[in-house]
């Protein structure tokens, strides 16, 4: 008996892999359909910020994630853009990650048509740039000395929504959605230095580390991981991939907890 249970600890890890596969796959095929109830304070803060903006104001959305973190961050970006479109807020999209350019195109493939928004009037996508510190410092004095053209090589100044935009003074806030440390740069070089409100959408892994910036108010709000995306979707009443994603994670999360507890109980009683 004791030996059999001890053997459980050395179980071929491929059985664990199989368990995990089933625990995520089955809820995708048969969703539990449980509603996301809680909304974190930091997500609510971004929502309130967006709600408080007057129609026609402009925000910068720095979209810096590649496919490796897209399942967490793409729903966040989608929810933010939807909210902006609903509220008639204009969006300037920047990026400092080569891999995100394809995802940005994917993001704006269908959304503008759904909300009756036009490129150049309601949103504009700027090309990839290599050095974030250089670019975001420069945006404080003159945007056009770095970005002369948009991502499709159109003269940026000729686009209607850019007529009144020159630098951060014409921007109400920055939302950076990223799976990298790029948000740290926005906080340090733009939020702290120039006083522009900076908000973030990050992977769950890095979410916890932003506690100090949130407490000090250097970050005005934060969306963390798939749960954060689900919360934002709940707030704007547009359930999407975040909501269905967090529903699919129910069983897998319980599985991890069960495995940690089980292995420790075995260690405690049988070793």
């Amino acid at each position, binding site marked *: 008996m004791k030996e059999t249970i001890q053997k459980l600890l050395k179980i071929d890890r491929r059985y664990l892999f199989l368990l995990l596969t089933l625990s995520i796959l089955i809820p995708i095929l048969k969703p539990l359909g449980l509603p996301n109830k809680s*909304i974190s304070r930091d997500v609510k803060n971004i929502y309130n910020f967006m709600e408080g903006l007057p129609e026609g104001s402009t925000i910068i959305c720095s979209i810096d994630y590649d496919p490796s973190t897209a399942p967490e961050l793409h729903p966040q970006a989608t929810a933010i853009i939807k909210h902006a479109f609903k509220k008639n807020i204009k969006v300037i999209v920047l990026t400092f990650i080569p891999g995100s350019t394809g995802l940005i195109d994917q993001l704006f493939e269908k959304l503008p048509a759904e909300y009756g928004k036009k490129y150049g009037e309601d949103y504009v996508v700027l090309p990839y740039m290599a050095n974030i510190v250089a*670019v975001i410092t420069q945006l404080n004095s003159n945007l056009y000395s770095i970005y002369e053209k948009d991502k499709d090589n159109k003269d940026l100044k000729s686009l209607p929504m850019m007529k009144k935009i020159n630098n951060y003074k014409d921007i109400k806030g920055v939302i950076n959605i990223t799976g990298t440390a790029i948000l740290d740069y926005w906080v340090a070089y733009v939020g702290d230095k120039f006083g522009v409100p900076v908000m973030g959408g990050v992977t769950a892994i890095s979410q916890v580390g932003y506690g100090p910036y949130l407490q000090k108010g250097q970050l005005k709000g934060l969306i963390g991981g798939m749960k954060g995306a689900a919360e934002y979707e709940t707030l704007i009443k547009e359930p999407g991939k975040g909501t269905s994603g967090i529903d699919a*994670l129910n069983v897998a*999360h319980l599985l991890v907890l069960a495995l940690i507890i089980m292995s420790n109980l075995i260690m405690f009683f049988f070793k």
Partner: protein
Amino acid sequence: MKLFKKYIPLTIVFLFGIVSLASYYVPNKLSEDYLEVMNAWENIVSAFGFFLGLISLFYAHYMKIKKKVDGWGYSLFVYIGFLLMVVPAIISKGTQLNPDASLTWLGWAFRYLYNPLSATMFSILAFYIISTAYRSFRIKSLQAFVLFAAAFVLILGRIPVGQMIWDSILGFTKVTAGEAIDWIIGVPSTAGKRGIMIGVAIGAVVTSLKIIFGIERQYMGKD
């Protein structure tokens, strides 16, 4: 020769370091103009930095093929993968969507080649976290228990089922799982992270000063 190999580079790092540093504290037209030029230059120089990685990767796989080391055939796929992105890019002139919003060849290559490869590579880590959780997460001390307790609340409280379990057991406290998580991240974990942050900041400032004054020059390579 020492002048060109050593002293001029060290002067460059010192000058650009000091002037960039000063430009932060002296906000006037001159420092803004300086930064504008530097920002434009820096953006271009860092783009070249990418080629360092590209060349060393290509060279490493070229050597594998040349020496016919075990599994050298796979190295060919590095070049194939590269061409699978670059050739469509040339055909589509670097754009991913046609004016009618349909995919170009480059857009296709991103969506059906690069996207699944990159996303799957990282998603495999999920499997390792579950085997780590089962095999190495051992609660042997009070410290380990505290770590586990924080992890437990976060893992449970993030999912709707967990919130229901929480409410049925701890509902009487009037504290929801979401509030408990907000508190853990906002108070004790913030204190822990802030301690690390201050420590790292001091280290980073010292290293930066060492670089500017030419004390730290490992990045320059050997003489």
